């Protein structure tokens, strides 16, 4: 394990700021903990803790109706909670950028993460989202930047998958 914290969460935060994202919905997640903390500390970003990820889809639709840009931070298991609400985005061409920390793929200890984690990419594509996958930390800034441009430029849903290899495995027994 590296001693220094990874740079990509801060780079993602910088992308959100450059993209003028004003509302960030999330369900607490270890992989996104650094980014969530940065959002909470920023006076120009409203951080909105959700009870379920689908709330973040509807939140983003409302934000855009009111002229603000929103992002959704979630774990791969949250994607399954969003499917019907994503029909709102497709029916109305609402923009949304979502950053998804992946579970169930790289050195996963918990096999119950595999069923949802393994279908995130096809599910998001079926829901008409554009999907990018970051395999290495250095992929993140460019993909995130492109995702924000595309989501709000074309009014569509763009997902960036942050692979488990990139995030590192969860430590189960300390």
């Amino acid at each position: 394990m590296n001693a220094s914290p990874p740079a990509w969460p801060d780079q993602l935060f910088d992308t959100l700021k450059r993209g003028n994202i004003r509302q960030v919905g999330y369900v607490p997640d270890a992989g996104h903990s650094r980014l969530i903390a940065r959002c909470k500390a920023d006076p120009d970003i409203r951080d909105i803790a959700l009870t379920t990820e689908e709330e973040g889809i509807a939140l983003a639709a409302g934000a855009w109706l009111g002229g603000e840009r929103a992002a959704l931070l979630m774990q791969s298991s949250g994607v399954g909670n969003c499917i019907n609400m994503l029909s709102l985005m497709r029916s109305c061409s609402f923009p949304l950028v979502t950053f998804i920390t992946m579970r169930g793929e790289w050195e996963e200890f918990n096999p119950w993460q595999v069923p949802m984690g393994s279908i995130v990419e096809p599910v998001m594509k079926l829901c008409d989202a554009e999907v990018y996958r970051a395999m290495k930390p250095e992929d993140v800034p460019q993909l995130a930047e492109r995702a924000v441009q595309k989501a709000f430029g074309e009014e569509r849903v763009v997902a960036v998958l942050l692979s488990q290899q990139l995030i590192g495995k969860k430590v189960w027994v300390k």
Partner: protein
Amino acid sequence: MTGTLERRAAMAKLVAGRDDDLLVVPGLGSTTYDLAAAGDNDRNFYLWGAMGGAAMIGLGLALAQPHKRVAVITGDGEMLMGMGALATIGIQQPQNLAVIVFDNGMYGETGGQPSHTADGGIDMVSVARSCRFPTCLEVSDEAGLADLAGRLKTLEALLFARVAIMPDEPPRVLPEKEGAVLKRRFRAALGLTP
């Protein structure tokens, strides 16, 4: 407790004489028809789907437009599906949002099957109170309705209201269905680039 208020008349009263600062998000189904029947308006964002999402759309809109007033007016079934939103909204405490539930204790769109609020079941007002809505109203008569309509004209704090409507199903009044059109006209009415 079955309500006695007629839903169309109740909706008409809530939006009568509305100004341009009132933005309304109805739930899919009957409350969308009720709002359309009360008079079309670019500042209505009708829902034809996204069940369980009305209150959260209202939250995103209220946060983005803090100087406008946002009224989510939805049915009991739609609210039950997204009940977690009440907790999320309670934590956020937007001052300019009202969540109003037209409660007839049934799923009108699918044949009138009872919902969890039917027959002394789940009390949505208590749920909203637990979720820290500072004002929680039980609206069961014309006086209560007039009070609620008056509050919507200023709306100085987060508000929840249950409106006890009778289980009737008036003829449908169908508004625009094309989502992108509804979105664009709504944004244009707010002065945003469509």
